[in-house]
C-alpha cells in the first residue's frame, strides 16, 4: 500500500490532534475520514508507527543490545524481514517539514487572516484554514467557511484547495462553505474558476456554484450579491436549503449547538436570520424558519413540521 503524500500529511496532523486528551473535534475528524476511504488506513498507519516508534525509542535509548529491542523491532519489521539487511544500507531521505500554518476558529468566532500580498481571508466559526508561508497565493480550506478577498494578479492567480477540488481566482471576492456533502462557492466580485483542469467552470459575480464533494459534479445558481459573505455582518440567508445544512450553518456562525432532528421532514427551509439575537434566545429561531426547536441540555434540536 502506497499512501498518498498529502493524505499522509493530513493523517499525521489528525494523529497529533486526536492524541491530545482534550481533543473535541471528533465530528470534524469524521468528516475528514469520510472524504476518502484511504484516510482511515493512513490514520491507523500513522498512529501505530508513532506508538511503536515511541516504544522503541523508550526501550532502546541509543545504547547496546537490550532485552526489549528485538521484540519491539520485530513488531515493526518482521513483515519486511527478508529485506532488512539491504535496507540498512538504504539511503534515508526525509522531506523537510513544511512550515504550513493552521488556523482554526471555534463555533461563533470569526477571524481575519492578512496575507503578505495584501489579500485577506475572513474565517467563519468552526473553520480550519491552512496557509503555507512558503507558497504565497495559496490556501487550503479544510473545514467550515471563509470569505476570500484576493488581490488579483493575472500572472500569479490565487489558488484555494477544498478537498480534491481547486478554485482559482480571476480578480475576486468569494465565499467558500464546506457542508456535509457539498461545497458552495459564491462570488461577489471578479470571478472564480472551479477545477480549471477538469470542469473548468467559471463563477461570475452574483452566482453560486455548488459541487458534490464525492463526485465533483456541480450546479450553478444565482445569488444576490449582498448575500455573498453576509455572515460577516452577522446574517445568514437560506433559500430552499436542507434543514441539516441550515442547522450546521447557524451553529457555525453563532456557536450555539443547533442540530437537525434525525426524524425531521425533508421540507426545504427558506429565511434570513440575524445571528446576534439568537445568542440571547436560541429558541427564537423556530418561528423565523417555521421549525420546532427543542432543547436537550446544551443542544437545540430543530425539526421541520
Amino acid at each position: 500500500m502506497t499512501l498518498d503524500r498529502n493524505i499522509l500529511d493530513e493523517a499525521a496532523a489528525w494523529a497529533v490532534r486526536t492524541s491530545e486528551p482534550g481533543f473535541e473535534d471528533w465530528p470534524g475528524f469524521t468528516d475528514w475520514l469520510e472524504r476518502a476511504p484511504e484516510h482511515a488506513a493512513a490514520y491507523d498507519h500513522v498512529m501505530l508507527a508513532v506508538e511503536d516508534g515511541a516504544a522503541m525509542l523508550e526501550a532502546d535509548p541509543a545504547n547496546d543490545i537490550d532485552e526489549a529491542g528485538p521484540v519491539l523491532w520485530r513488531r515493526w519489521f518482521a513483515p519486511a524481514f527478508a529485506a532488512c539487511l539491504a535496507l540498512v544500507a538504504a539511503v534515508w531521505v526525509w522531506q523537510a517539514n513544511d512550515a504550513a500554518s493552521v488556523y482554526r476558529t471555534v463555533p461563533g468566532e470569526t477571524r481575519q487572516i492578512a496575507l503578505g500580498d495584501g489579500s485577506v481571508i475572513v474565517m467563519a466559526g468552526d473553520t480550519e484554514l491552512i496557509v503555507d508561508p512558503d507558497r504565497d497565493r495559496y490556501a487550503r480550506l479544510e473545514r467550515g467557511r471563509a470569505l476570500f478577498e484576493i488581490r488579483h494578479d493575472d500572472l500569479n492567480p490565487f489558488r484555494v484547495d477544498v478537498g480534491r477540488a481547486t478554485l482559482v481566482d480571476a480578480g475576486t471576492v468569494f465565499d467558500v462553505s464546506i457542508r456535509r456533502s457539498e461545497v458552495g462557492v459564491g462570488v461577489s466580485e471578479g470571478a472564480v474558476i472551479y477545477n480549471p483542469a477538469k470542469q473548468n467552470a467559471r463563477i461570475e459575480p452574483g452566482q453560486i456554484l455548488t459541487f458534490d464533494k464525492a463526485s465533483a459534479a456541480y450546479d450553478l445558481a444565482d445569488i444576490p450579491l449582498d448575500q455573498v459573505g453576509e455572515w460577516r455582518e452577522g446574517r445568514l440567508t437560506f433559500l430552499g436549503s436542507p434543514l441539516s445544512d441550515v442547522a450546521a450553518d447557524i451553529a457555525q456562525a453563532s456557536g450555539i449547538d443547533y442540530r437537525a432532528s434525525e426524524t425531521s421532514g425533508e421540507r426545504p427551509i427558506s429565511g434570513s436570520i440575524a445571528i446576534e439575537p439568537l445568542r440571547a434566545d436560541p429558541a427564537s429561531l423556530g418561528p423565523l424558519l417555521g421549525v420546532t426547536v427543542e432543547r436537550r441540555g446544551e443542544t437545540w434540536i430543530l425539526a421541520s413540521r
Partner: protein
Amino acid sequence: MTDNPDDGLQAVFLANRQSLLRFLVARGAGDDAEDILQDVWLRIARKPPGPVGAPMPYLYRAANMVMIDRYRSARQSATREQEWTEATSGPVPGISDSPSVERLIAGQQLARKVEHALAEFPERAVRVFRRSRIDGIAQRAIAEEFGISISTVEGDLRSIYRVLAELRERLDEE
C-alpha cells in the same frame, strides 16, 4: 442526573448513537460498526470511568481506541502468518532462522535507524516528541514547559509522526 453516575454517559451514548456509528463506519468498521459500537459500550460499562466532563469526546475516543486495537491485531496476525511461512520455507527447509545473529543485528541496526531519522530533527522537536509520547504529557502542558506555542508543539509532533510513518511504510513495502 440520577444517583448512578453511568446514567449520564449512557444517555449521551444513546442520544448520539448515530454519530458514533457514522464515525466508526468512516473509521473503516464497515458492516461491523454496530458490533463494534456495542463492544465500545460494554468496555465502558465493565469499567465505569466515573464522572466524565465531556461525554461525547470520551465516547469518540473510546471508539477510536477500539479501532486502533483492531488494526493492530489484524497486522499482528498477518505478521505471525508471514513469520510462520518464513520459518517453514526458509533457506534450509524446516529450520527456523528466527534467533539468528544476522536477524538480531539487523533489528539493532533498524532501531538505530529510527534514532537516526529523529536525529535529523532539531533537538527541541525530539524532546517534545519524547515528552508527548513517552512521558504522556499533554501538548498544552508541553507548550508551557518549553515556552513555545501550542501550534509549534503540534508542528514538531506532526513532522516526526510523518517521518515515522514514512519509515514504517518503506519497510512494509520492501
